[in-house]
């Protein structure tokens, strides 16, 4: 027999237990899945470098802005940024993605990008993800793109933060643009810690 329940509100009967629907628990606005994992809120945010940067060894510490194109999407709470150090809006499991575009006229045997994380507000930093590219000498500017990605467990927003680092065998111009995402950082809250 097929039947449909139509109500305006379903509330938990036992305080602190939430409402269970076929092994999915709904409680206080969050969802706990029967197969594991829970999500109390979602967020996505994206920052980008707004000006170009020449370096062979640098943290990105300036010229960062939230993507603000007319159709730029954003979901939930904001990341906050200070001198290139990013703070999460709430504890949780986050996807952190670092997309980098650069160019150089001349060879660079390696060009790297890394995501660094800290669990003690910057006293020590741990390399979480690393990606390498290279550029061959073609007697003209040659472009490259690379991406590093990490899943970050933020258990305390005051201590667990990330920053972004670039290095290369020779100076590379890493592109920054205020009108589109070239070198950019994407944050997505996947679920609860």
């Amino acid at each position, binding site marked *: 027999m097929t039947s449909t329940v139509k109500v305006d509100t379903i509330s938990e009967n036992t305080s602190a237990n939430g409402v269970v629907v076929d092994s999915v628990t709904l409680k206080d606005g969050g969802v706990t899945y029967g197969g594991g994992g829970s999500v109390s809120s979602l967020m996505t945010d994206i920052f980008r470098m707004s000006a*170009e940067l020449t370096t062979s060894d640098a943290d990105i510490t300036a010229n960062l802005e939230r993507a603000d194109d007319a159709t730029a999407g954003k979901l939930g709470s904001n990341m906050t940024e200070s001198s290139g150090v990013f703070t999460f809006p709430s504890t949780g499991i986050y996807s952190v993605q670092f997309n980098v575009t650069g160019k150089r006229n001349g060879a660079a045997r390696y060009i790297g990008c890394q995501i660094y994380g800290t669990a003690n507000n910057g006293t020590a930093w741990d390399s979480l993800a690393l990606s390498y590219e290279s550029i061959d000498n073609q007697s003209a500017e040659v472009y490259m793109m690379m991406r590093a990605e990490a899943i970050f467990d933020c258990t305390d927003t005051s201590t667990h933060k990330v920053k972004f680092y670039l290095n290369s065998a020779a100076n590379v111009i890493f592109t920054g643009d205020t009108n589109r995402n070239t070198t950019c950082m994407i944050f997505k809250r996947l679920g609860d810690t």
Partner: protein
Amino acid sequence: MSDIKTGRPNHIEDYLVQLHTQQWFGWADSKNKIYANLILHPKIYDASSKGLVNNPHSKPSEADCTAGLKALQDAWDLENDSYKSKRRAEYPSIGDQLDEIFKDIDAWKNRIQAIKDANPKG
């Protein structure tokens, strides 16, 4: 940034980004990158100490930026839109040239000289 299709510098940021390394400059209004909005960041990353230090650079004049961009454009034009680029496009590959030098060096000299004559300097 420089013209993506040609690589020809077309903005003073192309000059600024080659003047010094690290994020020593920025824009008061990133949507309006004119000289009046050029700013210097008080701190920049120092690779040796792995931290921020006082920005040691000073703001270039608008004339410096304009002249610097023009110098980059002139250099690009010389490399990409002059006798040099035209000759480069016509020269055989290095491998083919070496092969021709081995087989008939006079024929190689004549070939190269003809390309130079067809695309004179100036």
